[in-house]
C-alpha cells in the first residue's frame, strides 16, 4: 500500500521534472549545447512568480487563481532571459569546442545563482496557496491538492510546447534547425533567430514550472544545479530530442526518488539519482526513445 502512495507522489512530482527536462532536451537537440544554466531558469521563474504575488498581495499568499495569474509573468520573463542568454553569450561559442559551451553556461549559472543569492538571500521560500489544505484522499491515497495542480500545470505546459513544435510555423522551423541547420538556412530560415527562440521557449517552460515548484517544494538561489542534473538524467534516459521520452523519464525519476525516500531515507535520494545518471550514461547512452546523437 505504501508503495502505491510513494509512486503516486513520485508521478506527481515527476511531471515537474519532465517539464523541466523537455526544455533542456529541446535546447540540446536544436542548439546542440548542454545548457547548464537551465536549472537557474526554474529558480528565476519561481522567484518571478513569488515576487509578483508578493507585489499584489503583500505576502506570498494568494488564491489559486491569483497564483495562476502569475505564471504568464514568469513565462514571459524567462522567455526574455533565455532569448538574451542565447543571443548574447551562447551564440558566440557555438561551433567551437563543446567544452567551451559547457563552461559558458556553467559560468552563467554560477553568476545568476550568486546574484540571486545576493539579492534574495539563501532562505528557502515558498508560495502559499490558500486552498491547499486539506489534501484529497482518493481510494486511501493522499493527494495534496497543490501537487495535483502542479502536475496538471506541468503536463499542460509540456503539451503546449509539443503542439507549438508540431503545429506552428516557428515550431517547424525549430524542428528543421534541429535536424539540419545548414539545410534550414538554405530554405530561408533564420537559424540564429530560431535558436534564440528555442532557448527562450525552453527557458519559459522551465520558468513556468518553477512557479509550480515554488508552491509544493521550496525555492532558493542554489536549487538550480540539482534540476539541471535531473534533467540530464531524464534526457539521457528518454533519449535526446524525444518529448515522450522526457515525459516517461521524468515520471520514472520522480517515482524512483519517492520510493528511495520512502523505503530508505530522503537523505539518499540525490545520491541515488546521480548514481543512476552514471549507470544510465554507461549502459544506455542513447536512451529509450532517442535515435542517438553524435557527440
Amino acid at each position, binding site marked *: 500500500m505504501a508503495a502505491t502512495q510513494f509512486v503516486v507522489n513520485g508521478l506527481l512530482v515527476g511531471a515537474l521534472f519532465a517539464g523541466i527536462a523537455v526544455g533542456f532536451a529541446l535546447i540540446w537537440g536544436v542548439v546542440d549545447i*548542454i545548457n547548464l544554466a537551465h536549472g537557474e531558469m526554474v529558480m528565476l521563474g519561481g522567484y518571478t512568480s513569488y515576487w509578483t504575488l508578493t507585489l499584489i498581495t503583500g505576502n506570498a499568499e494568494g488564491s489559486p487563481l491569483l497564483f495562476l495569474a502569475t505564471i504568464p509573468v514568469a513565462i514571459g520573463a524567462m522567455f526574455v532571459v533565455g532569448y538574451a542568454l542565447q543571443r548574447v*553569450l551562447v551564440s*558566440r*561559442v557555438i561551433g*567551437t*569546442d*563543446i*567544452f*567551451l559551451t*559547457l*563552461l*559558458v553556461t*556553467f*559560468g*552563467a*549559472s*554560477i*553568476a*545568476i*545563482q*550568486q*546574484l540571486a*543569492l*545576493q539579492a534574495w538571500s539563501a532562505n528557502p521560500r515558498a508560495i502559499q496557496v490558500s486552498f491547499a489544505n486539506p489534501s484529497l484522499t482518493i481510494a486511501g491515497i493522499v493527494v495534496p491538492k497543490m501537487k495535483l495542480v502542479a502536475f496538471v500545470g506541468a503536463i499542460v505546459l509540456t503539451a503546449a510546447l509539443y503542439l507549438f513544435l508540431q503545429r506552428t510555423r516557428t515550431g517547424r522551423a525549430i524542428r528543421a534547425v534541429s535536424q539540419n541547420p545548414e539545410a534550414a538556412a538554405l530554405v530561408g530560415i533564420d537559424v540564429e533567430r530560431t535558436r534564440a527562440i528555442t532557448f527562450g521557449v525552453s527557458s519559459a517552460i522551465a520558468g513556468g514550472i518553477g512557479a509550480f515548484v515554488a508552491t509544493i517544494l521550496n525555492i532558493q538561489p542554489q536549487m538550480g*544545479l540539482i534540476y539541471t*542534473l535531473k534533467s*540530464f538524467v531524464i534526457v*539521457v534516459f528518454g533519449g535526446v530530442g524525444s518529448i515522450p521520452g522526457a515525459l516517461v523519464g521524468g515520471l520514472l525519476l520522480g517515482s524512483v526518488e519517492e520510493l528511495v525516500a520512502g523505503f530508505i*531515507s530522503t*537523505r*539518499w535520494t*540525490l*545520491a541515488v539519482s*546521480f*548514481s543512476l*545518471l*552514471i549507470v544510465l*550514461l*554507461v549502459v544506455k*547512452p542513447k536512451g529509450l526513445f532517442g535515435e542517438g546523437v553524435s*557527440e
Partner: protein
Amino acid sequence: MSAETDDSGVLRSILPPEQVDRAFETCDNHGWKLLVAGAVVGVLPPLLGLEAGYFMTVLTEMYLFGVLALSWDIVGGQTGYPSFGNMAFFGIGAYTTAILTKDFAVAFPLAFLSAGVVATAFALIIGLIVLRLRGHYFAIATLGVLLAAQQVSRNLSITGGASGKILLQTPPGEVFYYVFLGILVLEAAVIYYLSSTRFGFVLNAIRDDEAKATAMGFNTTYYKTAAWGLAALFTGAAGGAYGLFNTFINPQTAYNAAWNVELIAMALLGGSGTVVGPIIGAFGLHTVIEIVESYAVGWQLVLLGLAIIGTVIAIPEGIVGALREYASEMDYYERGGMAATDETDAEPSDDGAPTGGDPQ
C-alpha cells in the same frame, strides 16, 4: 581547436614580437631551469622571515590551486576529456587524511600519502566507467560522480555526516606551505617530463583524434586511465593536506563544485595543454578572487562566473596559448610568410579591448 585569436594587434602594441619569441624559445630549451628557479623562489619567503599569517595563507592557497589546475589539465587540457568532477578526488583525499589522523591516530605524513593512493584507486575504478564516455556525456558524468560522492559523504557516519569533521591537531602552517609547494613542483616536473615522452604525445593524440590514435596501435584506454589516475594522485594528495590545513572539512568544502569550475577556469585562463599555463592561471585568478574576497565579500563567485564567460569568449586559448599563437605568427611573418597574405595578419586591429586579460 581552430584558433580565432585575432588579438595580435593589441598584443603587438604591448609586447615586442622578438621578446615574446625569445621568451618562448628560452622556455622550451630551459624549462628545467625555470622550474628550479621557480622552486627556489617559492622556498624563499618563509626563510626570509615572512611569518605565518595572511600572506602565507594566500601563497599556500595559490600553490594548492596551482596543483588542482595542473591536475585538471592532465586530463582536461592534455587529453581532451573535460572533467567536471576532479574535486571528487580532492574530497576523498581530504576525508582519507581526516579519518586516518583523527579516528586512527595515524601520523600526518602517512595519512597524506594514503590520501593520494586512495584517491588514485577510486579514480581508476571510476575511470573504467566514465572514460568510456566522451564530450558532453563525460563532462556530466564526472559532475555526477562529484555530487554522488558528496551525497555519500553526507550520509555516512564515519565521515561525520553533514556537519563534517573538525581537525584540531594539525602541523603548523609553514608545513603546509612547503607541502603544497612541494606537490606543485613535483607535479610540474612530472608533467613537464611526460610532455616530452611518448606518454605525453599519446595523450595529445587522444585529444586531437582518439580514433586515429587507436588506429595507430596505441591502447588509448590505458593512456587515458593512467592520466586520470595521475591527476587523481596529485589532487587527492592536495585534498589530503587541505583537510588538516583548513582544520575542518564537511561535504560542502571537501567536494566543492564551485572550486571545480574555478580550477577549470584557471587552467583555461592561463592556457590549457601547457605546463606553465594552468599555474599562471591559478596564481592570477586566485589573486583576483582573494582581492574580491577582501573588498567585496560574497561577490567572488559572481566574478568567477563572469571571468569564465569573459575568458571563453575573449581568449579561448588562454594567456599562454594567445602568446604562443602570437609568437608563431610573428615567426611566420618574419621568416618567409611574406609571399602569402595571411588573413589573421591582414586585419589585426579591429579587436575589442578585453584581450589584455591581466596575467597576474
